[in-house]
């Protein structure tokens, strides 16, 4: 029998995966949700995956999957699979989602294979739809159910599994009460915040000031993570518009109409034309919407609208949106501060580079980012690594270490980027199991 000559990868430090996901099981609604809210909760937010159709239900309205449900791309990656292999999966047969998405023991096994010692867990379907839930009481019940379920998930390995808590931002009093509740539960190291418009209001609004104050006071990290947005209406995040433009690529209108498209706020959305190829066949938003969503949060809320300046001890992690763009943001912000009137209710600092240096914000990065490989010294204090497990684009810690080492980055810096920074940002004790 042939034996593999590939060396077993090794590492001398603990890796903290700052961006991995769970997929919420039915049990969250059926067992963890307060019985008084089960019917309402399932109407307010529910993920249906059936043999013939799949959708996300939000406020009783269905947002049907635009992707092929045979390949559950938000939970398809498993150790050993490459991006090319994901792209070669047969789209006509049903592929099972990765077990580790919902099963903690399977998760721990996969973490072992990936070289990951500890991880912070983000939601999947709650990320897509929770903040669109309109009824604050139902949102509070759903948040509690999510948090109770994931606390039990993390209990399988309390020193390895940590979570970002769901926070019902629909009512800031409820949000702060839930933050105070989960602050006593050791698995919660962050509060999940999706950088999006909620009730047509962004995180630039003074409405959210009590949230930042509570996070700072309680020492809970703002764990900011964009969602794909593929099940959301227009005007909530960048994805719906990108998908509408994707539709334009094959729109050969026999009769011209203005606008339209999936989830559009106006127009009838009808494509009255004939298109020989049909639509592109897959989403485009995942390519750039995470970066744009995070970029806007940092630029608008944290820097432009002085959240970072007014709550300097609040820690923030911006997951899943790349990191190398920050150099450009700081250059542009500096120019804007010099040339544009900074009209505000509060004093606004005009030295964004210094403020960034002093601040407690870190950005999730991918090892393949060229600027980080070239300028590790510029980034090493401000970035945290994430695998994106179990999403289709996931990578392993071994991949990251190999890529960064290959770029000439030393082991101490890699250890910081892949573990040390996350430990300080999320307030965890790094421990090595792999």
């Amino acid at each position, binding site marked *: 029998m042939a034996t593999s000559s590939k060396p077993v990868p090794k590492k001398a430090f603990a890796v903290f995966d700052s961006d991995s996901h769970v997929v919420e099981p039915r049990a969250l609604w059926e067992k963890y949700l307060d019985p008084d809210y089960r019917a309402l909760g399932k109407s307010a937010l529910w993920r249906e995956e059936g043999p013939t159709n799949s959708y996300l239900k939000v406020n009783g309205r269905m947002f049907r999957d635009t*992707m092929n449900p045979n390949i559950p791309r938000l939970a398809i990656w498993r150790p050993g699979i490459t*991006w090319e292999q994901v*792209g*070669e999966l*047969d789209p006509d047969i049903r592929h099972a989602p990765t077990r580790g998405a919902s099963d903690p023991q399977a998760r721990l096994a996969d973490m072992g294979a990936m070289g990951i010692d500890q991880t912070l867990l983000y939601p999947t379907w709650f990320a897509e739809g929770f903040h669109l839930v309109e009824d604050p009481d139902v949102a509070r019940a759903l948040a509690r159910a999510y948090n109770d379920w994931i606390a039990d998930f993390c209990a399988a390995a309390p020193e390895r599994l940590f979570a970002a808590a769901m926070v019902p931002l629909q009512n800031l009093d409820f949000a702060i009460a839930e933050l105070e509740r989960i602050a006593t539960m050791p698995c919660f190291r962050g509060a999940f915040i999706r950088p999006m*418009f909620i009730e047509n209001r*962004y995180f*630039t609004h003074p409405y959210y000031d009590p949230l930042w104050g509570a996070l700072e006071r309680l020492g809970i990290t703002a764990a900011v993570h964009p969602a794909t947005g593929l099940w959301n209406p227009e*005007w909530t995040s*960048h994805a719906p*518009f*990108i998908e509408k*433009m994707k539709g334009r*690529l094959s*729109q*050969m209108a026999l009769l011209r*109409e*203005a*606008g*339209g*498209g999936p989830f559009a*706020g*106006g127009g009838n959305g009808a494509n009255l034309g004939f*298109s020989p*190829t049909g639509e*592109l*066949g*897959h989403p*485009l938003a*995942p390519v750039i919407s995470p*970066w*744009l969503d995070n970029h*806007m949060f940092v*630029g*608008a*809320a944290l820097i432009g609208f002085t959240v970072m300046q*007014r*709550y*300097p001890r609040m820690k923030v992690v911006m997951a899943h949106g790349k990191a*190398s*763009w920050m*150099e*450009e943001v700081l*250059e*542009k912000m500096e*120019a*804007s*501060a010099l*040339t544009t*009137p900074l*009209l505000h*209710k*509060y*004093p*606004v*600092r*005009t030295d964004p580079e210094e403020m960034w240096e002093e601040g407690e914000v870190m950005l999730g990065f991918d090892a393949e*980012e060229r*600027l980080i490989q070239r300028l590790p010294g510029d980034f090493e204090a401000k970035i945290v690594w994430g695998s994106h497990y179990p999403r289709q*684009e996931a990578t392993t810690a071994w991949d990251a270490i190999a890529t960064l080492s290959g770029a000439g980055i030393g082991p101490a810096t890699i250890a910081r980027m892949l573990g040390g920074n996350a430990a300080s940002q999320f307030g965890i004790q790094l421990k090595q199991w792999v």
Partner: protein
Amino acid sequence: MDVQGIDQVMFIPSDIDTYPWLRNGLGATAACKAYNEWAWEGCQADPERLFFAALLPLQDPKGAVREIYRVAAKGCRVGLVRPIDALGNYPLQPRFDPLWRAMEETGMVYGMHPFPALGSLKPPGYSEQHSASELINRTVTSADIPHSFLTNVQNFQAEASVWVVSALFSGLFERFPKLKAAVFEASSTWLSFVLDECDKYYKLYRNERRFPPLKRLPSETFFEHCMTGFEGDEAPPSRLPEFYENILTWSSDVYHHDGDDVWRALETMRGCGLSAERQAKFLGGNARRMYNIPAPKTFIRERVTEIERPDWWPTADEIECAMTAEASVLPRAEPVAVNTFQRAVGGSN
């Protein structure tokens, strides 16, 4: 230009946010033609140094095709397109294919120019999102604070990146193999990861793609067919010169408020250790190659240091005062709550 160290320039109109909303196709064609004629006449003052990018009326594709041939005959190198969905005219739809064919035939470059989505001529009741950058405006308008601070930071990248990703995945440059495209005023750092993301997702979604397969990866297509402008972000590309070497074209953005000059760009690039050869590419060589413009016979070699300023020019003290944090506070009828203000100026809970 002489003071700024600029030898040759491609003019772009400022009013690029209004003309896509002109609802009458003939009127839009007439408006574009009027601008293009005016711009061409202006360039005759020094045809070796001054060039213009032409406006194209997407409201009237046939009119746009005629205008491409007309301005190309006058020596125009670039046809400008705003990457927004005003009136449903996002400029990558199949019905605009005749424009790109005309650009191929005339050698004109597809000039994709983003802008903050002000929507000043948007028809009343138009409720759809028409630009990727509208969300950034809404972070301001939804916050009850008048703050235009962010209009230069993300608006351009949002519009440009949506276009780049859409164009590359659509196979535009495989259907029109001679077409070249210029990405204006969107900075350049984001390209260093977006092109890699395009390649990644092309591989991941290969089994679901219903358009014809691409012959090359998206990044390879970009490097062959496209260039990107950069302005104010000279440092990052100077540190990744092998990536940007043949795709970067410098912009001053003058006379907009954040405009700049060549001398500062050179200082930054030299400070990053960029070779003189690459500086020359970024500051002119790449652009001339794309637009097929010969180098001028003479060029500026020395910086003008004595500049006459008007009486109203701010003093150093006035500038310093304007830069203090407190200078941004809006005059209010009532004071801001004490604890909030204390926190803002450095106090804590």
